[in-house]
């Protein structure tokens, strides 16, 4: 069997259910693949891992992948199981935020580590400065959790529809207390959790073949997870070595993630791609990327996989 190493963008959770299902249900084995899944974490930059040769495929958000590409790292998107973005900004109504017009002079929690690009391009679209100057917004580097919102240190924090939002809810705030801004609805959605490989590897036919089988099995896993969310969540739970995840949270996460992957067959939607690129290019004085990327994606693999 051929060895494939997959580097996740975050710790083991239902966000990556498709891959764990494919592994657990033997879909990879059917394709004669021997897949190792490496969980990520707050200090793991998937792009760096693949550059160091620690993985064959990585999951990354497109803004970060394209930014890395501009840094000279030849990352190529070969498949895109997530169709829509799960990112949103969750605000407390009692902090006085009802619409983006209320943002000025508020403190907003943002994830950095390459995850800040969608937020930055949204703000530049709104014409708000993020450097702390008057009339702009004050940005906090948000930690792992939603504490700043709960404790009133920030008016809004970044959340994913499938994860942090529910932590806010679990903590005791009700949806009525909250005002959420989904990036999808604000027209600043960017593509999340795509599969990326090194461009030069794609010149190797054996590697390409391996990836075709990998994408095919992974998508099979995703579709299985979408239709059997609870079982998928339990598979994820079994694979969590830290033993810290809870069943309730993972099942809920799986249900939310299924909404984001629904409708994707794995092939990159070129329109969505262009939307992402445009929003990243239009970053005002400090755009995330400065020129139209070339060869940043290919349908070669997904086309063969979907045949």
């Amino acid at each position: 069997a051929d060895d494939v190493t997959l580097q996740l963008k975050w710790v083991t959770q239902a966000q990556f259910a498709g891959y764990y299902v494919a592994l657990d249900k033997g879909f990879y084995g059917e394709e004669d693949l021997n897949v190792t899944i490496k969980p990520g974490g707050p200090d793991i930059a998937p792009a760096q891992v693949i550059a160091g040769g620690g993985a064959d495929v990585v999951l990354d958000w497109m803004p970060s992948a394209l930014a890395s590409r501009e840094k000279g790292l030849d990352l190529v998107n070969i498949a895109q199981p997530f169709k829509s973005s799960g990112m949103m900004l969750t605000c407390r109504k009692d902090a006085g935020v009802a619409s983006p017009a209320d943002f000025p002079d508020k403190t907003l929690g943002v994830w950095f580590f390459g995850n800040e690009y969608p937020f930055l391009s949204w703000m530049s679209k709104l014409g708000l400065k993020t450097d702390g100057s008057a009339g702009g917004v004050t940005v906090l580097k948000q930690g792992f959790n939603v504490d700043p919102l709960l404790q009133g240190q920030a008016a809004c924090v970044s959340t994913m529809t499938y994860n942090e939002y529910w932590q806010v809810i679990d903590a005791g705030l009700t949806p009525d207390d909250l005002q959420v801004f989904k990036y999808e609805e604000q027209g600043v959605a960017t593509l999340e959790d795509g599969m990326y490989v090194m461009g030069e590897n794609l010149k190797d036919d054996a590697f390409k073949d391996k990836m075709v089988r990998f994408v095919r099995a992974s998508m099979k896993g995703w579709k299985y997870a979408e239709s059997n969310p609870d079982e998928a969540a339990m598979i994820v739970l079994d694979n969590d070595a830290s033993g810290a995840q809870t069943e309730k949270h993972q099942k809920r996460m799986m249900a939310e993630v299924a909404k984001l992957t629904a409708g994707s067959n794995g092939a990159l939607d070129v329109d969505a791609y262009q939307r992402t690129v445009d929003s990243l290019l239009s970053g005002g004085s400090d755009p995330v990327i400065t020129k139209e990327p070339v060869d940043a994606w290919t349908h070669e693999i997904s086309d063969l996989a979907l045949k």
Partner: protein
Amino acid sequence: MIWILCGIIFWLAMWAMNLRLSKAKPNKLIGFIIPTIFGLTILVLWECVVRGFEISPVLLPTPTAIAARFGNSIPILWVDFVQTFVKGALSGFILGCGAAFLTAIAVDRSSFLQAGLLPVGNFVAALPIVGMAPILVMWFGFDWQSKAAVVVVMVFFPMLVNTVEGLKASDHMQRDLMKTYGAGYFQALTKLRLPAAMPFIFNGLKICSTLALIGAIVAEFFGSPIKGMGFRISTEVGRLALDMVWAEITVAAIAGSAFYGVIALIEKAVTFWHPSQR
């Protein structure tokens, strides 16, 4: 290949030179040149290896690239330095070492505390920073106060252990002398125990000086305003701007070494009498 070869030749040459220099009569100039040459050698070797093996700049940038980035980013680096070093590390260092020092004296004074506080103190201070940092950020907010708190927790234990050990360091005859004077506790402390403890205390301060910087930087990984050395490092790693990361690390290394150096100088002045200083 050429690069590798050059690197090795340069290395050997410098090594030979340092050996020669270190045999010469010690003086200030040589004390400065030798480490400089050593450092230079490492940098040149680094440059050669990166170029020779064509290591991707997103893994390890060359020293020249780092230097260029450093030169271009002085204002940012300065803001970060003030935020992390001056506000976070320094204030935490002073508070933490001060608290540990006082605790050590309390522990030393009372055998009850000695028996009770020392084990518990060890325990509390052994709480790993990685775990403490998020909690302290939660308690003290995002700005430098929480970083200082992390530093306090981090430096407390090394300082405590060293001071407690140091306070035991005076020898029997020296203590007997104090007894014959009917010296009070406080007098024996200031005139004998503290001076005798100084080598240990400075040991602690030196170790803490580096810990303080690490602590302040690491704490910023768990939430911070958008400035500070730790913030910059974690953000730029994610952006694969490794040259900026290393520029910050350079600042950290320079600031940390200078901090350590200042403490070592004070130590030299204060413990001139200790055999290790002669």
